[in-house]
């Protein structure tokens, strides 16, 4: 979204292994407005497709409806094809930077992924919402989801506190 991006070399862009550490550069008011609009679109899509519904999550975990599988499957397919086109055509980001998807770190035994993933799944089934839908539901007027958001922040904080002793 701005010219500074081009200064970063490919190597610098790959270095941030986890998306949290992904090196971004300063934003402009215009770039932030763009992300706001994309977020609004995402919130509308999440709500209109009902994937933010506790009932839809139950249908999924009971294998009783195709809706969630179709939605996530089609999303992954379109995203994968897009990444392939970006790579093959050498499409660059606005500002000219090479587009890089930092690989997820391969930890021994991939412990953090299946352990953390299982914990996340228990929360997803209880709450019927993952992080994106939590925000869409709050916006949609389900104010009790602010309690879930607060608990999610506490969970994040407790993870950071326990991080040195948790297997990764």
């Amino acid at each position, binding site marked *: 979204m701005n010219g500074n*991006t081009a200064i970063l070399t490919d190597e610098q862009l790959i270095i941030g292994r986890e*998306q949290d550490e*992904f090196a*971004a550069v300063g*934003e402009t008011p215009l770039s932030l407005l763009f*992300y*706001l609009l*994309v*977020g609004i*679109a995402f*919130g509308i899509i*999440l*709500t*209109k497709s009902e994937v*933010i*519904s*506790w009932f839809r999550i139950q249908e999924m975990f*009971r294998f009783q*409806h195709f*809706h969630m599988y179709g*939605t996530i499957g*089609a999303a992954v397919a*379109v995203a*994968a094809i897009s990444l392939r086109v*970006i790579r093959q055509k050498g499409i660059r*980001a606005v*500002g000219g930077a090479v*587009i*890089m998807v930092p690989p*997820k770190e391969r930890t021994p035994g991939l412990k*953090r*992924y299946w352990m*953390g*993933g*299982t*914990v*996340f*799944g*228990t*929360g997803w089934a*209880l709450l019927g919402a993952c*992080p*994106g839908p*939590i*925000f*869409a539901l709050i*916006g949609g*007027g*389900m104010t*009790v989801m602010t*309690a*879930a*958001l607060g*608990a*999610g*922040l506490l969970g*994040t*904080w407790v*993870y*950071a506190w326990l991080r040195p002793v948790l297997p990764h």
Partner: protein
Amino acid sequence: MEWWTRPWPWYVAGPLIGLMVPVLLIAGNKLFGVSTNFRHMCAIALPSRLEFFRYDWKRTGLWNLVFVAGVLLGGWIASHWLANPAPIDIAPATRADLQALGITSFEGMAPREWFQWSALLKPTGWVLIVGGGFLVGFGARWAGGCTSGHGISGLAAFQLPSLTAVLGFFAGGLLVTHLVLPLLLGAP
């Protein structure tokens, strides 16, 4: 029913969600993923000596915080101007299973008896809302991503760690749906 109030089928919503990935990459080399915002919010609101929260959130996370502010607004827009007046057309088998667990309200996005403030007066409401929220936040950071970062961005990039995480999401979800919810919702 007016066309704009109708729910969107999977073959419309899925591809649109998938387009988030190239749009954010092309706009500014940003990787689509929502739960990392929980970390940014902690870094802002709960400053501490924990090394995990000591980084420049404005540089790495401001765009994403603005993005989720948009998600919140989008939820408001969709529920005020595009809202479906009818209850969600859930599978009859799911409805029967949930009725057997004592759920009677099928209006709105979640069962009204459990997803409102007064439910927090009961232990079951606490487990569903506060327990669920806590585990989502804790698990997402441990796994390094959630449904968007691993389930969509990671799977689309053929990342084995992300596939592992998604299998974990399902293991945890199946465990709760089939073993924990019957005990939890069946309890008084």
